[in-house]
């Protein structure tokens, strides 16, 4: 280490330079792997985050190579040869060297902090004319809700629709526990905190469909709590979808069975019910496995409690889910409330009625297993409505 003459010290400088160049080149090569370890960047923010990621890959890669190189070199060069029982050099430290390796990391973290801060400011700056979407996490379903201009009803969907170049602001609220709204391709993530409203923003730049994932442990169905974002090519294509949805919401069918189906797919006054977060039902494209399968539920409802009618069983299950637990399942379903619209899990009785009417048709024959006209009377004698 301590060169004794000038040619030695020149060689040391040369070696340090060679090592430095190798480390820089190595770091840059490692940084080229960035796109391999990240999903495609589909938002303006993602592009900036990836640039930062790349810088860190280059820097981290160099440091990693430096340490690996030093260890491997030492292990080979400074191994004790067989029969050599002597000690190494009695070297206790070197103030210059220690100063250098304190200073360089210090400067590096300062620079990194500044760059990160700049990226942070860029990606969080509010954009003009954002599309505002209310997003809700409920165990274990994401739902997105859009204002229909001039109407009180809203368009609800389990898919977030937007279009290229349109800044999006999401207002995030949870119905129960904490969740985290994560769109890997957009590089955004924001926790949904019980009792608080949080916000996330991004500007998509690439048309396509991208997964939305829940990233905060929320219970048994956490791994299955996903949704997707559809980024349309342009606003017109977005409006094609939106106008269709809005038309359906604004012109609900009279038939209670059809109305029930609409409620379960497009939501009611309290937003989208989170049934799809836990239940399976092929007809509606639900595939969650946390709660009992709803396929053929009308047939099974007839046999579950001796002497109880199908419609009464289903109705009570909506409002008192703990009453008849299907063996093998825990009592996880939210207990719906029908009285106070301000309550969490509010479900007005007329909507409940339609939902039961729809569920009654989920039989092997496809015919309704109940007499829907009896429902209002039944509610009255259960003390409801």
């Amino acid at each position: 280490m301590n060169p004794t003459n000038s040619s030695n010290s020149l060689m040391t400088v040369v070696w340090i330079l060679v090592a430095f160049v190798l480390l820089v080149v190595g770091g840059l090569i490692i940084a080229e792997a960035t796109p391999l370890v990240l999903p495609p960047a589909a938002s303006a923010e993602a592009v900036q985050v990836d640039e930062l990621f790349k810088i860190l890959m280059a820097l981290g890669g160099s440091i990693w190579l430096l340490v690996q190189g030093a260890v491997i070199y030492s292990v080979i060069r400074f191994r004790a040869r067989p029969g050599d029982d002597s000690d190494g050099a009695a070297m206790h430290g070197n103030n210059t060297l220690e100063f250098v390796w304190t200073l360089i990391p210090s400067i590096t973290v300062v620079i990194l902090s500044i760059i990160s801060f700049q990226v942070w400011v860029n990606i969080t700056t509010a954009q003009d004319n954002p599309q505002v979407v209310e997003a809700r996490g409920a165990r274990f379903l994401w739902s997105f809700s859009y204002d229909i201009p001039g109407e009180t009803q809203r368009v609800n969907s389990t898919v977030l629709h937007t279009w290229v170049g349109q800044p999006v602001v999401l207002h995030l609220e949870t119905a129960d526990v904490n969740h985290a709204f994560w769109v890997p391709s957009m590089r955004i993530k924001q926790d949904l905190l019980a009792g608080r409203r949080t916000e996330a923003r991004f500007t998509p730049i690439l048309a396509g469909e991208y997964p939305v994932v829940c990233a905060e442990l929320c219970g048994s169905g956490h791994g299955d709590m996903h949704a997707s974002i559809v980024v349309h090519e342009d606003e017109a294509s977005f409006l094609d979808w939106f106008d269709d949805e809005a038309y359906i919401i604004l012109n609900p069918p009279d038939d209670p069975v059809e109305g029930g189906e609409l409620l379960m797919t497009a939501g009611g006054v309290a937003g989208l019910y989170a049934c799809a977060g836990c239940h399976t039902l092929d007809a509606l494209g639900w595939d969650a496995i946390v709660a009992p399968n709803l396929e053929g539920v009308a047939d099974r409802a007839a046999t579950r409690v001796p002497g109880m009618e199908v419609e009464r069983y289903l109705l009570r299950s909506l409002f008192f889910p703990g009453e008849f637990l299907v063996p093998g399942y825990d009592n996880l379903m939210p207990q719906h409330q029908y009285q106070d619209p301000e309550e969490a899990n509010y479900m007005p009785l007329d909507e409940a009625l339609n939902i039961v009417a729809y569920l009654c048709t989920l039989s092997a024959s496809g015919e309704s297993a109940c007499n829907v006209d009896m429902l209002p009377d039944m509610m009255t004698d259960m003390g409801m409505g």
Partner: protein
Amino acid sequence: MATITATPGLGTRSAEGAAIRAADLLRWSLDHKIIGLQYMVSSLFFFIVGGTMAMLIRWELLTPALDLMADGTQYNALMTIHGSVMIFLWIIPMMAGFGNYLVPLMLGAKDMAFPWLNAFAFWLIPPAGVLMIGGWLVGPPEAGWTAYPPLSTLFSPDGQTMWAMSLHLLGVSSILGAINFVVTIRNMRPEGMTLWKMPLFVWAVLATAIIQVLATPFLTGGLTLLILDRTAGTSFFDPGSGGDVLLWQNVFWFYSHPAVYIMILPGFGMVSEVLSVHARKPVFGYRAIGLSSMSIALVGFTVWAHHMFTSLQPALRIPFMITSMIIAVPTGIKIFSWLGTIWGGKIRFTSAMLFALGFITLFVFGGIGGIFLAAVPIDIHLHDTYFVVGHFHFVLFGGSVFLIFSGIYHWFPKVTGRRMNERLGQLHFVTTYIGTFFTFVPQHIAGALGLPRRVAMYDPQFTNINTVISLAAFLLGISSLFFIYNILRSLSHGERVGGNPWRALTLEWATTSPPPPWNFRGDPVPFDDPYGYGSDESVAYLDAVERRFPAPEESDGA
């Protein structure tokens, strides 16, 4: 202080045979060496328990669907208990065990300052273990080791309360143990051993104890509120009644981030010993290593909210990014100082040294991952993904656990008078290193690509990478069996050694192996520089130690 002959308050212990028998470990004892072993043996037991759980987790994750578990709740319970056991019943008590066994020996003391308190602190661990595992059987906690409300308060079953009580006991145990360390190190150093002549392991234990004393009270406070919310109808964490879910996150991480350093700092101390002894070279930059332990301990108190970058108010995120970045500096100083220590040495590739070198190469990867997570814009993407899982396993397994292995290979001869088998040690090292690398590096990649953590079911695009991770994890599981077998076999078959098989300068080697009940016969005189290898004085000193505590006849000597 080195002139003490009568020792009040240390209890009595038999002065006959110095060897500690297995039965001694089941008894209430005031001997710090027995207590140290009690910590180590019980935590090794919990390592096997937690490791088995890890194997079950990796088995479940072989496929994207549920297969081993009946439902997600079972999986969540499993990973909650796996995390809690590994952190609170394996790594932290194991480090406490090393501290208890070694600190008085390194200081030339007869025992810790408060032997009774020491024993009491240990005996809080078995009931805590029973509560933790019992809670799992009763109605498992399913909110992860971080136990965020409202999932942990309004949704998780009764086992969550038992989990909290278990952590409460472990917190008290940790505080009492730490008080003992601070007092012992402050008051009981031998004459001539200033703070700047203490072994670096003692420095590290001191820094750790300071963190425990200052941080653990916040865990106690937080758990008290959690238990009240669950059992007494209060609503500190229930926003529906005026509470706040971020309150828990703040209090919890104010403890749990420093707890990360509780888990790694003693290991940093051990690796400084091991590298210096087995490279036969003084520690490079002794003061820098000692001071960096202290600065990590202090700065560690200012970074907690980097665990909350996706939940914290956005305006507060940047300050915590800066403090988190700063931690990289003292950590970097340590890594470079260790490199300086082996540079120009005469490296002996003992199993202890292999794990110490392996630690450096793995830990630097974990540290670089930490920088990614400290940068807010990147953390937003990586938060709560498998990147984080990979990161903390790199620093906890590649870091703390590698150092524990290294420490066990290094000090096993002192504790038992026998060396561990080196061939098995090499096999253990190679399998562990490969297993660690291929378990936890792919986890980083999977997380960055979009795999969230704590999921029993995942997107099928991650099937292949999860298969790689699981297979590597199974290799890790097998490698631990080599280790356990090596320990058990070496207890009876290991090569017998004298007092100082590695020719080390710190005081714990200047006595018989294992040490007698009061550690030293007469008052030990520390060598002036605990890392003064390469000098003639040190060779003379080591020769003298060897003559005084020779290896038994039947072996070839050390």
